[in-house]
């Protein structure tokens, strides 16, 4: 099975967690941070990252800040107040998801 399919559903909690820990980040920085934290195991493609960032921005979970770099503009994302609540909620959901998988794949014997 393709591992990237397994990671797909976890992209949003990963993103929210990174933003919680790092304050504000831009697209390329996020991809590099994930690559670094997972020792290259998880590579986020631009086609998956940007639609997610844009959706979360539209939903008011993320806010943006632009910075002019001379010849180009950089868009930084950070969590809004409701984004911080969403991040906490997504962590609980992810934990519950992990526990459910644990029950199936690694049951504790009585």
């Amino acid at each position, binding site marked *: 099975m393709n591992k990237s399919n397994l990671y797909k559903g976890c992209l949003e909690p990963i993103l929210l967690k990174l933003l919680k820990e790092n304050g504000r980040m*831009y*697209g*390329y920085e996020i991809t590099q941070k994930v690559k670094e934290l997972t020792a290259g195991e998880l590579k986020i*493609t*631009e*086609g998956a990252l*940007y*639609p997610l960032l*844009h*959706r979360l*921005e*539209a*939903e008011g979970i993320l806010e943006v800040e*632009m910075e002019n*770099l*001379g*010849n*180009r*503009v*950089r*868009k930084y994302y950070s969590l809004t107040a409701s984004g911080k609540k969403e991040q906490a909620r997504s962590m609980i959901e992810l934990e519950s998801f992990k526990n459910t998988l644990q029950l199936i794949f690694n049951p504790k014997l009585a």
Partner: protein
Amino acid sequence: MLNKEQIQKIDAFFNENGVQYYDVRQELIDHVSEIMEQKMNSNPSLPFEVAFDETVARFSKKELVLLNEAAGSNYDPRKEWQYFTKQRILKFLLIYLAMALPLYYLPSRPALLTGALYFVLWMVFNGRMLLAFRKRHPAPCKKLNTFSHPSWFITLLPVLYQTYIIGKYMLKINTETQVHPVTLALLPFFMLFATSAQMAQQHLKEQDYLAAKNNYPFLF
């Protein structure tokens, strides 16, 4: 740091491959530029063209078209409701009552003519409002996702209703046709509904416009 011409080449690549929104392209340009700058810094003899070809090879046209479409579909019309504060709702309600009560209590013929007068005045007011907004906010020279959510069709509602009234009653005005007062009282309701919806959209668009002007000043 890549120069202006090099940035323009990256911009042209995304534009030709389906990313029509300038603001979406800017984000991808920054992403690609960062990758290319790292490649060129670690290998100073690497020509820009080679770094460019290597970097953009990761993008398929299909993926870019989808990315552009996804950005375009993010507009949330519920944000327009922020415009309707208690004060504004009260104001619209009072205007509605001031317009609807004469239509409700007047006899059919003067009520129909008053309704027609309201409609003409509404058309002039709405037209002027739309033109004034366009004049105050000239379109950017490139297409922006943040400023591309049209919706003027709601103004058709009063037009269709007035057409219905004209067809059903006004063309037979000499034949003592009795108009139910509620039928006429609905006309200012549709007018105010359409106008307030337009104002709510303009209010949100104005915020997007000012943000875009601040972020991409050279486009205006």
